C-alpha cells in the first residue's frame, strides 16, 4: 500500500502549521487519507514546532513513527527528529542555511540539500515563500503531481489576493521543478505516492477537519444555540469556530469571565430552554465542578466538552493525554447520573456531539464529550459527515401548558415518574411557574430535608441512566466476537490500538478490538461477554495507571491481563501498541 510519513520542523512563527494544513488538504483532495499531529510549545515565537503528517491510500487511524521525508527548517529539527527517520528516509534541508557538513549521526539517511531560501527569493522575491517551495519539493519527492497543490494554494490564499496566490504558485512550481531536475533515487518502496495510476478526484467529499471543528459543526447541526467558554488549550478552537459561525446561525456565543461563570451561564441558558454546551480542559473543568453537581440536582441538561491535556495543574499545556477519565467520572460531591462519551476519531467527534445534545435533554442531566489534544487539534480526513442522520430530540421539554396550577403552588418540575424524567417547562409559559432548586426538593421544587422524600428523589435521578442502555452509543467491534485476545481502548488511543490489532489479525492471530464510545455507563453485559470468551485481555490508554482497565474490572469483575499505557504527552504510535500487545500474548 502506498503511504508517506512526512514531518516538517522549525521554530514557532515560521508558519509550520499552515504548511502542514496545505499539504493535508492537497492530499485529501486527491482522495488520500491523512492524519496530522502538531507538537508546539506554549509560546507565540521561538521554541520548536513540528507537524507530523501521515498520508495513506486507506483509512488512516494512527500515527506512524518512522518518517519518510523530514523537512528541517532549523538545526534543532535534525537533532530532535533524526532518530525517528525510516532507513533511507529523505532529509530536506536548506544548504544555504546549514553548514555543508551536516554531521548526521545516522549514515543511512538520504540528505537532500534544497536551496529553499534562494528559490523563494528568486521566484517570489520574499523569504516568506520558503514553505511553499518546500511543499512543491515534497510533492515531487513523494512522486505525486503538482496540480492538486496548486488548486489548494489558490483556495487557501483566496482572501489574500491574486498577487499572493501567484507568488505561492510560482514558489510551489519552482520547488517541484528543482526536485524533478535533481532527483533522489530510492532503493525501496519510494516514490511513496506515485500518482500515475492514482485517480485525482477534484471534487472529493473528503473533508480535512480537527476534532474541535467537527464538534463545532455538530453543535450547529444539532441545534445547540448557546455556547460559552473560557480560553484553554486544547479546547479553545471550538470557541474560535463557533464565535465565527455561531451568531449567523442564531447561536449565542459567550466568553465568560471564568469557567465558573461559563458553566453557570450555560445552566441558566438551558433553564430558559436553550440548547447549551460548554468547552474546556481539565484545569477549567476543575473550576466547573461545583456547578456540575448543580446541573445534576436541578436536572438541567448540559453538554460539557472536556479536551484532555496532561496535568495536573498546568502540566503539558499543548500536548496530549487521557488522564482525566476518573476525574470527570467522579467530579462533584455525592452522586447523580452523568454520561461520558469519548470519540475515537474526528468523524466520531461529529456523531457523538449531536447525540450528546439529545441525550442531555432527554435525560435532563450533564453529558460529557471527553476528547484529548490529539483528537481535538489534530487533523483527520472525514470521508463524509453523516449530516442526514442528525436529528434533534428535546425530550420532555414543555413550551406550553393548558392545565391549571393552584395559587401558591408550582408546576411539579420534579414529578416522580417511571423513567425518572419529569416534564421540564421553560420559564415564561402563561400562568405557570416552577422552581428549580439546588437544595434537595420535593416534586414542586420546594426545599425539603424529609428523609423519605430524599430517598425518592435520589432514586428518581439515579434511575435516569443504566448499564447496557440501547439509547447510548454502542461499542464498536473489529474482528470476531470470540477471539483468544481481546483488546479494548477509548478516545484517541483507539486508532493506534485498532491499527495494531488489524496488523496482528493479518498475521493470522486470533484477536479482536473493541472501541468504547460511551464510558459511563459502561456496556457491562457486552464487556462481560467479550472478556469471558477471550483468554487474554489488553487495555490501551494514555494515562499512568490504566484508568479504564480498572474501571472495567470494577464494573465487570473481569481481570485485565495487560495495560498498554503511555503518559509522555504524545499520542501512541501504532507500532508501540503492537509491541505492547505482542508482549502480552
Amino acid at each position, binding site marked *: 500500500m502506498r503511504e508517506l510519513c512526512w514531518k516538517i520542523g522549525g521554530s514557532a512563527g515560521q508558519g509550520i502549521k499552515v504548511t502542514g494544513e496545505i499539504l493535508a488538504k492537497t492530499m485529501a483532495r486527491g482522495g488520500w487519507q491523512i492524519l496530522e499531529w502538531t507538537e508546539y510549545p506554549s509560546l507565540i515565537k521561538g521554541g520548536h514546532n513540528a507537524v507530523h503528517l501521515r498520508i495513506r491510500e486507506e483509512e488512516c487511524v494512527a500515527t506512524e513513527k518512522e518518517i519518510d521525508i523530514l523537512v528541517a527548517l532549523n538545526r534543532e529539527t535534525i537533532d530532535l527528529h533524526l532518530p525517528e527517520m525510516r532507513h533511507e528516509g529523505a532529509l530536506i534541508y536548506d544548504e544555504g542555511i546549514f553548514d555543508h557538513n551536516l554531521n548526521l549521526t545516522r549514515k543511512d539517511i538520504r540528505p537532500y540539500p534544497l536551496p529553499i531560501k534562494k528559490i523563494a527569493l528568486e521566484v517570489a522575491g520574499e523569504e516568506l515563500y520558503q514553505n511553499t517551495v518546500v511543499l512543491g519539493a515534497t510533492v515531487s519527492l513523494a512522486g505525486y503531481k503538482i496540480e492538486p497543490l496548486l488548486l489548494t494554494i489558490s483556495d487557501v490564499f483566496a482572501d489574500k489576493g491574486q498577487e499572493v496566490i501567484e507568488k505561492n504558485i510560482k514558489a510551489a512550481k519552482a520547488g517541484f521543478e528543482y526536485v524533478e531536475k535533481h532527483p533522489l533515487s530510492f532503493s525501496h518502496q519510494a516514490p511513496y505516492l506515485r500518482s500515475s495510476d492514482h485517480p485525482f478526484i477534484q471534487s472529493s467529499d473528503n473533508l480535512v477537519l480537527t476534532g474541535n471543528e467537527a464538534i463545532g459543526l455538530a453543535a450547529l447541526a444539532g441545534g445547540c444555540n448557546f455556547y460559552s467558554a473560557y480560553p484553554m488549550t486544547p479546547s479553545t478552537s471550538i470557541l474560535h469556530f463557533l464565535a465565527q459561525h455561531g451568531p449567523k446561525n442564531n447561536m449565542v456565543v459567550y466568553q465568560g469571565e471564568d469557567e465558573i461563570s461559563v458553566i453557570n451561564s450555560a445552566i441558566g441558558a438551558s433553564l430558559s430552554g436553550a440548547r447549551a454546551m460548554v468547552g474546556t480542559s481539565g484545569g477549567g473543568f476543575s473550576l466547573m465542578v461545583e456547578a456540575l453537581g448543580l446541573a445534576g440536582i436541578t436536572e438541567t441538561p448540559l453538554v460539557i466538552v472536556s479536551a484532555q491535556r496532561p496535568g495536573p495543574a498546568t502540566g503539558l499545556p499543548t500536548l496530549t493525554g487521557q488522564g482525566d477519565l476518573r476525574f470527570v467520572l467522579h467530579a462533584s460531591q455525592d452522586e447523580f447520573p452523568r454520561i461520558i462519551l469519548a470519540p475515537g476519531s474526528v468523524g466520531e467527534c461529529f456523531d457523538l456531539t449531536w447525540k450528546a445534545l439529545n441525550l442531555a435533554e432527554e435525560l435532563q442531566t450533564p453529558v460529557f464529550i471527553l476528547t484529548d489534544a490529539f483528537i481535538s487539534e489534530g487533523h483527520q480526513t472525514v470521508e463524509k459527515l453523516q449530516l442526514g442522520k442528525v436529528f434533534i430530540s428535546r425530550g420532555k421539554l414543555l413550551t406550553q401548558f393548558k392545565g391549571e396550577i393552584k*395559587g401558591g403552588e408550582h408546576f411539579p418540575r420534579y414529578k416522580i415518574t417511571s423513567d425518572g424524567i419529569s416534564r421540564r417547562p421553560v420559564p415564561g409559559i402563561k400562568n405557570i411557574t416552577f422552581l428549580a432548586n439546588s437544595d434537595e426538593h420535593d416534586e414542586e421544587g420546594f426545599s425539603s430535608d424529609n428523609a423519605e422524600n430524599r430517598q425518592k428523589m435520589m432514586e428518581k435521578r439515579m434511575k435516569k441512566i443504566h448499564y447496557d442502555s440501547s439509547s447510548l452509543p454502542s461499542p464498536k467491534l473489529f474482528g470476531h466476537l470470540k477471539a483468544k485476545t481481546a483488546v479494548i481502548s477509548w478516545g484517541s488511543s483507539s486508532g493506534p490500538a485498532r491499527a495494531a490489532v488489524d496488523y496482528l489479525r493479518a498475521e493470522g492471530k486470533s484477536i479482536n478490538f473493541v472501541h468504547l464510545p460511551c464510558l459511563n455507563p459502561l456496556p457491562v453485559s457486552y464487556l462481560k461477554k467479550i472478556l469471558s470468551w477471550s483468554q487474554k485481555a489488553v487495555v490501551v490508554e494514555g494515562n499512568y495507571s490504566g484508568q479504564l482497565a480498572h474501571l472495567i474490572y470494577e464494573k465487570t469483575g473481569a481481570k485485565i491481563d495487560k495495560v498498554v499505557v503511555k503518559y509522555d504527552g504524545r499520542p501512541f504510535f501504532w507500532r508501540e501498541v503492537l509491541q505492547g500487545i505482542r508482549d502480552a500474548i
Partner: protein
Amino acid sequence: MSFRFNKMSNKFITKIKPTWCLGCGNFGIHTALQSAFEELKLEPWQVLMVYGIGCFGNGSNFLKTNAFHGLHGRPLPVAMGAKLANPSLTVIASSGDGDAYSEGGNHLLEAIRANIDITLLVHNNGMFSLTTGQASPTTPIGQKTKSTPFGQYLNPLNPIALALSQNASFVARGLATDVKHLQGIIFKALSHKGFSLVDIIQPCVSFNKEYSAEFWAKHTVKIEKTPETLKEAMDLAMESKKLPIGLFWQEKKPTLADKLPDYPNSPLWQEVKKVNLEKILQNYH
C-alpha cells in the same frame, strides 16, 4: 411588617411559610419587590428570580415566580445565561453581601461590563448570617464576629463606589426597613434597560445586633436629587458619616443584547433548529 402583605394580592406568595427570623430585613425586601411587581403589572410567570445561597436564598421557597435556587456566589452568571436565552423574561438575581461581593465578585464586574438587562438585589447585612455570623466583605473594621473575635481587620468593600468606577449604568442603595422608599428604587431598577445594582442595607436581628433597624434609621440619609455627573455620584458614594440611600447614578447605555453580534432577540427555545452546514463545509475541502 407582615401587615403589608394584607394590602397586596397574594399571587406572588407560595404555600410555604417564611422561615426567616421575626424582624428580618428580608421581609421588607420581599414586600417591596412584590409591590414593585404589582406596580409594573408583572405576573409571576413573567419573572425569573435566580437566588444564591444565604438566608435570602430561602426566599426561593416563599416568593411565587419562576425561580432557580443555585450556588453560593453564582446567581449572576445563571441569571445572565437565562436572560440571554430569553430576553422577554424579567430576570432578577437575588444575592447577599457574601454571595455578591465575596464569592461572586468576579461575576459582578462582568455583569457591569456586559450591561446585561437584569437586576441584582444584594441583601447586605454586613454578615454571613446563614452560617451563624462571620465577617463579610461589608463588615466594618473593628467589628467582632465569630470569625473575627478580635475585630474585623480588612477594609470594608464599597460596592457603590466599585460599580460607579466601572461605569455601571444603574447604581442604587436602599434600606430594607424603609419599604416604600425601597419599592421605588426596585421599580426604577426593574424599569431600567441594562444592569441595575441595588445594594440593600438590612439589619440582622440574630447575628448583627450592633447594626439594628434603629441604628440604620439614624445613620442613613436619603439622596434628594440623583447626581448629574459621575464625579458627584462618586463623592456621594464615598460619604461615610451617614450612608446615602437612593439612586446614585442612572445612564442610558447599550445592553449586552444590543452589543452581541447577530443576537436573535427572541426566546432561544424557539430557535433550536438544524443548521445547514453546506456553506461552512466549503472551507474544509
